[in-house]
């Protein structure tokens, strides 16, 4: 394993043994209809609170991913998971019955773990107001992935790039795509430089979730930086919802959004060989309502993983 300023190339890349995606009914009626392991109904799926529903989704995703991998919870060495609730309670309560060694993580939408419209970031559901067109819709969704040794599964995680916190002084809570785009630019260009590759070397460069506005900014800046994405770029926020038909403005967001798109669609296409080499860049706007009200800007972070189907060859360095 080599680590150069956050770019890590695995000598023995872990592989993906099992994965699962769960979504709310609105997400399940989008372009990825029929690809989720389970669809949760309504805002809370019969639970008494949003928080309980979030835990339930996370637990289901974890159990389903384990089932698909053919493993029981006591065979898992460690679980990394997170959400956007204070103290990561969605995860804590969701995973408490599994008794797996657990490390909680927080990275806003870059968590790639799970989320359901957390209340601290939005107005009450029944509040009547118009959202600006740059705003994104927090997805109700969760995803889980079980990792094992190289080539045990059909998809290997060949490399990763841990992102830096990048802040271009965006203060508009309704334009998170713009807050995250510079972080995505930073991480992708760093990875390209370090591995001496470019967009052509991959089948798909998937960001989650810059939305329409952030995606447009990303591709424009990548052109300027000399690393054009050349039509290889997709965004989870745009894949999860149909912006023409569903009222989500600039696209989906939330850490469940990229998790669900990856686990419901992209991993399947990697397994079947339809896609061979995919860069998945989970972007997060590290927005705190308190800091924002105090006049702070919104920093962004983007973490990258390089996924390759078993059929593919070659090292990333």
């Amino acid at each position, binding site marked *: 394993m080599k680590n150069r300023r956050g770019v890590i190339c695995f000598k023995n890349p872990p592989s993906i043994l099992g994965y699962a995606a769960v979504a709310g009914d609105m997400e399940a009626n989008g372009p990825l209809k029929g690809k989720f392991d389970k669809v949760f109904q309504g805002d809370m799926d019969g639970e*008494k*609170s*949003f*928080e309980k529903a979030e835990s339930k989704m996370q637990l289901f995703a974890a159990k389903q991913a384990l089932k698909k991998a053919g493993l029981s919870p006591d065979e898992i060495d460690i679980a990394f998971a997170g959400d956007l609730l204070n103290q990561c309670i969605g995860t804590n309560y969701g995973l408490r019955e599994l008794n797996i060694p657990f490390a909680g993580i927080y990275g806003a939408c870059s968590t790639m773990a799970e989320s359901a419209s957390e*209340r601290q970031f939005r*107005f*009450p*559901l*029944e*509040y*009547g*107001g*118009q959202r*600006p*067109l*740059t705003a994104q819709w927090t997805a109700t969704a969760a995803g889980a992935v079980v990792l094992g040794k190289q080539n045990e599964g059909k998809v290997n995680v060949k490399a990763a790039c841990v992102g830096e916190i*990048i802040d*271009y*002084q*965006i203060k508009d809570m309704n*334009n998170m795509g*713009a807050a995250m785009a*510079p972080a995505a*630019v*930073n991480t992708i*260009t760093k990875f390209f430089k370090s591995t001496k590759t470019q967009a052509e070397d991959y089948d798909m460069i998937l960001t989650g979730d810059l939305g329409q*506005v952030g995606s*447009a*900014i990303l591709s*424009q*800046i990548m052109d*300027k*930086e000399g690393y054009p994405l050349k039509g290889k770029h997709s965004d989870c926020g745009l894949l999860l919802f149909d912006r023409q038909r569903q*009222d989500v403005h600039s696209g989906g967001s939330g850490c469940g959004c990229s998790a669900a798109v990856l686990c419901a669609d992209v991993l399947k296409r990697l397994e079947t060989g339809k896609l061979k080499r995919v860069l998945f860049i989970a972007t997060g706007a590290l927005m705190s309502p308190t800091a924002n009200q105090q006049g702070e800007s919104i920093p962004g972070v983007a973490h990258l993983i390089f996924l390759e189907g078993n059929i593919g060859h070659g090292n990333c360095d």
Partner: protein
Amino acid sequence: MNMSYKEYGQLVKKMSPGSPIYKTFPLAFLIGGTICSVGEALRLWLSSMNMSKEECGIWVSVILIFITAVLTGFGVFHKIAKFGGAGTFVPITGFANAVVSPALEFQTEGFILGVSSKMFIIAGPVIVYGTIAAMASGIICYIINCLGGNI
């Protein structure tokens, strides 16, 4: 990324779509106008029952608040507000919805720490600054009247 914060801010501004005012303005006018017309119809109906001007005003407000609260509870109001924008927000209906919606949302935290304490998280500033503005205008009226004016 070779770009200053200022340059980036300008790029973001250029790439971000603005509100479609050709659509939002007429809709706000239409829906806001409808709400006000309903209020006016109620006032005419009430005054036909020999109510005083002040009483009519109070009853119109109460009825509009009641209708909004019921529509909010049934999950209909925010759908109207999506199209109405300022048309539903500016009349008293907007204020009623801003109180009822957090009250519904925070039921899970109980009546004391949830419903009653979170009820004014959106409408609180309106109440505080509305009261202050009323006091200020009252003082101004008082001073003018003391100086021999009549308002």
